[in-house]
């Protein structure tokens, strides 16, 4: 096990923060081989191959977002991501969420890249909720309603369709617009996402923490709208305090 850990480290795999029991020691023949591997030009080449595969996986997992990031910044972000262990998973979904969170923390707020990042994250989360059974459209007055865990609300500084088209490579990126437009993403929405109107956005904001239906109605929120968002998986009946979705 120790030999494998050392070979992995030689080709660029970050070591665990805490030493793994059983991997601290290697036998004399293993150490001899590892010393030879450290000098072997094939080791450096394998590390390069590894890096190029990690970059490819990262680009595949966050393609739309990275398309809107300027080249130099994109290179720096990917290099940092791979250096810290990212890009190693063969599964796009496993790679996507941590990478998109990593990017979101480093992209300018209210930028198109930041919005598309939240959108891509929302798509992955919505996929994660496929097969879920959604709440009835007619909950009781004391049902506590909150944001569903696989739902996302994204704000764009402009027309989402134009911005996403630019990210997909089909059009120039439009300038930022102070007039924002919102999308909702959820597993029960046909095609996983759609535009969000002002009433829905207000309800989304109101359900950041669980609220009873009667309270929401008293605050002026539309009950039929609540029902629709429940059946789409945008909202959910709270059964577990602290379980909530995220918004951008």
């Amino acid at each position, binding site marked *: 096990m120790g030999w*494998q850990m050392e070979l992995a480290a030689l080709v660029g795999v970050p070591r665990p923060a805490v030493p793994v029991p059983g991997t601290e020691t290697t036998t004399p023949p293993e150490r001899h*081989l590892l010393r030879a591997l450290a000098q072997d030009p094939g080791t450096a*080449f394998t590390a390069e191959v590894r890096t190029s595969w990690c970059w490819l996986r990262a680009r595949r997992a966050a393609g739309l977002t990275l398309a809107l990031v300027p080249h130099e910044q994109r290179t720096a972000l990917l290099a940092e991501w791979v250096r810290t262990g990212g890009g*190693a998973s*063969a599964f796009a979904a496993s790679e996507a969420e941590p990478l998109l969170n990593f990017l979101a923390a480093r992209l300018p707020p209210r930028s198109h890249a930041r919005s598309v990042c939240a959108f891509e994250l929302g798509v992955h989360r919505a996929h994660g909720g496929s097969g879920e059974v959604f709440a009835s459209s007619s909950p009781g007055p004391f049902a506590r309603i909150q944001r569903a865990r696989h739902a996302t609300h994204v704000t764009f500084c402009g027309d989402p369709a134009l911005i996403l088209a630019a990210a997909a490579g089909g059009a120039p990126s439009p300038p930022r617009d102070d007039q924002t437009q919102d999308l909702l993403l959820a597993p029960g929405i046909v095609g996983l996402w759609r535009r969000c109107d002002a009433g829905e956005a207000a309800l989304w904001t109101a359900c950041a923490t669980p609220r009873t239906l009667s309270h929401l109605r008293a605050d002026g929120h539309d009950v039929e709208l609540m029902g629709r968002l429940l059946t789409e998986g945008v909202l959910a009946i709270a059964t577990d305090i602290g379980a909530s979705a995220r918004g951008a």
Partner: protein
Amino acid sequence: MSDGAPAAPAPYPARLSVGFPYLPSFPVEFYACSDAGLDFVELTPEVLCRERREGTTRRLELVEPALQRAQRACGDLPIVVHGVELSIGSAHAWNEAYVAMLDDLRVRWPFRWHSEHLGFQTVPDGSGGSRETGVPLPLPFTTEAADLVAARARLLRERFACPFLLEPPAHYFRCLGNPVEEEPWFLRRVLETSGCGLLLDLHNLYCNAINYGVDPATYLAALPLAYTVEIHIAGGAWKDGYLMDSHSERVPPAVWDLLHQALASAPQVSGVVYEILEETSAHLTPEAAARELEIARACWRAAQHRTAA
């Protein structure tokens, strides 16, 4: 668990002839259309899966729409499985999630045989789970490594009651030893102990020969070819003086020569697959792939005639 005694080898599966990987990006008509010269399909099940992680637990779930599309595309063509996520050589643990997923797949879509790579691609992550290395890594040619793999391979052969094959990898490490001298005994020990078969990737062999500086034909002749059930052919690219097993190009003439040699030496082979990787071969059209399959079929038929004569 094996005590190291030789296991009875599984019977050779019925011949399937010429195959190609299932690639979601290829049109479904490529698989169903007999003009492509396809007798079977090689499925990498991970392309049909979603991974879920909860703490240190991993699960691989078959994604229903992806599975159904693949089944529609392949129709009645027999399938074989070629996995990439098992990490059979990882000293700390192999990927149990992959084995569990294969249990599900076997019920949904029976396969004639299955195969995996003879190496490792996970290491411990320090919190009880596994971390992916991001690139497949080879095993040292030691008794310890051979016996670890053989024991696990035998379990898989018994679990799925169909042939399980191991594919020796291409790699770029000179100091793992001369492949002509070191690899044959290692493979023989693994295969004899486990009763498993060999998936002989001729382009991997060619890369290792070129990169190490040995004659490919001599290297091929040294291997335990009697265990070969499946052959992969492929093409790669050069970078920084290394021939890479990128599986991104058409088959070079030298690999076609190796195929002729291999089929002559191993008449029991059940199938030949022209393997390309979707990530690296976007420039290869279905038409180009069909031409390679045509050449592979000609080699196959020539070998069958030689055997019959």
